[in-house]
């Protein structure tokens, strides 16, 4: 019964969405308003009903049966709604309609043409996703025979970070759909209206970018403590699928500033907006069609793959053809000096796009090779590290200088004067860090110098409170500095020790001695586990912390997981994973000493805060036009 209402709500949102396609252009404001609100309410309704079905464990519903179990904690019953393919599509639709609502909220007399066209494109996208969900992935499908209990939910996904990871990421992806819609609408206007389309597009891009950043970071954090490999990024195709739109969103965000200030690069920005969303959809395709093997792969179903592919072809074919035909209206001849803010942003753009293309090539290259030669190859971490890192280095360097350059007019001697305090600060901090780790690897030293360069630059300006700088930008850039520091230190100076240890004996890593006290069986809410107790001492024999890694067994899904135990402070993480073993021979242990890892997560949060500050500032700007 309840499920039928959910299904009805889903169909209702399809009707509203189709209506919006027809009405948005010529309809009266009141009619459009009813439809936009109706769409939002109906999609919210179907989502809440699915959530309700998961909470009450209604196993007459296939989706609940396949992904839930009565013993599952409430939080994961809720997050289980979007932890599976069908439910996550419902969340996609909900976020799409929320953005649709906010686009409508911008509607006024002066921009009616742009907004109505944007709404039309947005409703086309929404319709595509609702049709896909209803016909290939309906979460309200009923079971033929009602079951007593569900199959359970993959235990490694039962985690607070992973509970919020998908919604954050979807806000990011779908935020880019708004940029896409604005871009198509703008191209359709032929540049005759003289309307500030970029000012409307920017807050959406900011939201998308900020949420993508934090969403990716939380995914990485989860991989770090849950997968027990000591690392946090594996160049998995699905990680790449989120990284690529992020890179383009970064480029898009920065070039929107140029458009705003100089009316330059307009065609380029319109193209970036199209590509960023298309890459998000292609990413979805790669994950859900089963075309690639990945740790993230959802249930495989070729018919879904074909549908998403056709949908992507329509979206991409239409928008890129439109771009080919109309973009000449947006070519401009407002040139600018290379040694200026615009110049540095342009370099940032080029480099981000190259990184994106490089990652894309690495991700799809095995597929292209397979299609043409029938050979299977795999492209992995060595490729990505060897190609992405060197391209990112100059981008980071430019990032440190760019914001200091005044718009378009700069003498080179002036630039030098401005950066002197940061140069000094960078030198001192880098010397300290490099001398602590006594390691002089080129990439490591370079990375640390660049990180402190950015950190000191932004702190100097923030303290001086120069008026012509955006606080949001400074804070975000500061966050990027922290991020680079954490990434560099944890990847270059990581220490790993794999050893076999009996109870009542100890081993050493870095300057710590780790004592294996005992190992016990423990019983959790829906698992049983072996739990090791380790005491960590420092050089002075003082207790630093106790670590308790676990090996868990979840009987419902018949899955074993390892729970790493981590002790973090601002200098380093100590990370222990319990392996196999027994009383007489001892247990296999993997121990990591990861310097400065915490700065990755701090960096991501700081970037997000900076992004949020900018979002509010840009919304203020919108009110003025």
């Amino acid at each position, binding site marked *: 019964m309840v499920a039928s209402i959910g299904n009805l709500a889903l169909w209702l949102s399809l009707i509203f969405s189709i209506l919006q396609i027809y009405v948005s252009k010529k309809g009266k404001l009141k009619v459009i308003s009813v439809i936009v609100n109706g769409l939002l309410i109906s999609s919210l309704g179907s989502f809440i009903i699915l959530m309700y079905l998961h909470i009450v464990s209604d196993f007459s519903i296939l989706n609940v049966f396949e992904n839930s179990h009565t013993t599952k904690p409430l939080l994961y019953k809720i997050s289980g709604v979007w932890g599976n393919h069908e439910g996550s599509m419902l969340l996609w639709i909900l976020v799409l309609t929320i953005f649709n609502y906010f686009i409508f909220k911008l509607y006024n007399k002066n921009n009616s043409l742009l907004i109505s066209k944007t709404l039309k494109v947005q409703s086309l996208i929404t319709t595509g996703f609702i049709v896909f969900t209803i016909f290939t992935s309906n979460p309200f499908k009923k079971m033929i025979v009602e079951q007593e209990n569900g199959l359970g939910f993959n235990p490694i996904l039962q985690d607070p970070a992973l509970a919020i990871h998908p919604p954050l990421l979807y806000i990011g992806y779908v935020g880019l759909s708004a940029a896409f819609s604005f871009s198509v609408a703008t191209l359709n206007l032929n540049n005759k209206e003289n309307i500030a389309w970029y000012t409307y597009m920017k807050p959406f891009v900011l939201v998308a970018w900020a949420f993508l950043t934090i969403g990716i970071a939380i995914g990485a954090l989860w991989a770090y403590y849950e997968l027990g490999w000591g690392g946090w990024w594996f160049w998995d195709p699905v990680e790449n699928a989120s990284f690529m739109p992020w890179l383009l969103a970064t480029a898009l965000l920065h070039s929107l500033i140029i458009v705003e200030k100089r009316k330059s690069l307009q065609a380029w920005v319109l193209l970036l907006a199209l590509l960023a969303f298309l890459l998000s959809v292609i990413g979805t395709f790669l994950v859900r069609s089963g075309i690639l093997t990945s740790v993230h792969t959802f249930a495989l179903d070729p018919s879904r793959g074909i549908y998403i592919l056709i949908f992507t072809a329509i979206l991409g*074919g239409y928008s890129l053809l439109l771009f080919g035909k109309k973009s000449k209206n947006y070519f401009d001849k407002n040139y600018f000096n290379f040694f200026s803010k615009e110049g540095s942003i342009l370099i940032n753009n080029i480099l981000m796009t190259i990184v994106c293309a490089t990652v894309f090539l690495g991700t799809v290259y095995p597929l292209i090779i397979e299609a043409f030669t029938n050979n299977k190859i795999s492209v992995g971490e060595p490729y990505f590290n060897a190609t992405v890192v060197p391209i990112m280095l100059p981008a980071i360097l430019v990032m440190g200088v760019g914001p200091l350059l005044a718009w378009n007019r700069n003498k080179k001697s002036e630039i030098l004067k401005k950066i002197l305090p940061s140069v000094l600060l960078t030198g001192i901090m880098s010397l300290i860090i490099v001398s602590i780790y006594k390691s002089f690897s080129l990439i490591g030293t370079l990375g640390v110098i660049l990180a402190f360069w950015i950190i000191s630059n932004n702190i100097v300006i923030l303290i001086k409170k120069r008026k012509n700088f955006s606080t949001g930008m400074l804070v975000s850039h500061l966050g990027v500095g922290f991020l680079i520091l954490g990434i560099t230190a944890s990847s270059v100076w990581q220490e790993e020790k794999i050893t076999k240890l009996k109870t009542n004996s100890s081993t050493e890593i870095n300057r710590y001695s780790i004592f294996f006290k005992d190992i016990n069986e423990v019983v959790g809410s829906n698992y049983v586990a072996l739990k090791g107790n380790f005491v960590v001492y420092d050089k002075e024999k003082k207790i630093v912390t106790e670590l308790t890694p676990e090996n868990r067994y979840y009987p419902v899904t*018949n899955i074993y997981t390892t729970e790493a135990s981590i002790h973090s402070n601002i200098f380093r993480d100590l990370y222990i994973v319990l392996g196999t073993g027994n009383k007489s021979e001892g247990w296999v242990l993997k121990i990591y000493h990861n310097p400065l890892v915490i700065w990755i997560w701090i960096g991501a949060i700081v970037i997000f805060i900076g992004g949020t500050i900018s979002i509010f500032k840009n919304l203020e700007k919108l009110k003025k036009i």
Partner: protein
Amino acid sequence: MQKKIPIFPLIVFFFILSVFFYLLIVDRNPSELPSNLINKNIPTFEAKSLISGKKFISTKEFKGETILVNFFATWCKPCRDEHDFLKKISDKKKVKIIGINYKDSSKKTVIWLKNLGNPYSDVLVDKKGRIAIEWGVYGIPETFVVNSNGIIKYRHVGAITGKIYKKISLIIDKNE
């Protein structure tokens, strides 16, 4: 020049989509992983036989006939699923199947084979997973077809299904 640029993204886009489309409709299996060992000699190894208790030396045994090598364990559910296909292969195709018992208890394995039937000509103990590492095993079950010259002709990751059964049969026929 400037006129040509705007259409360039469209061309690239459709090129990539057509690759995806081709791969979707073509009969392929993403879990058929690339292996550096295809068309190469099998890695040499020694192991204890679970059945005879004697030492098994690979260089002596892989000669003169097509042999299937199957990595399995009693704790692995897909291994149970593919067991019937293994029996079918050993009955109908009359090829030797060497089972490599990956990180498992020998006691449980004996009971398991008693209950489900034994398709293997020999079962080798790989308690520490060393043999699996030598063969580049990705996850069990995993199956290799080795021809009469001791050269690996095919690798399949995951349980054998009806489709894979047919494919393996074809490869066996071709190599005989």
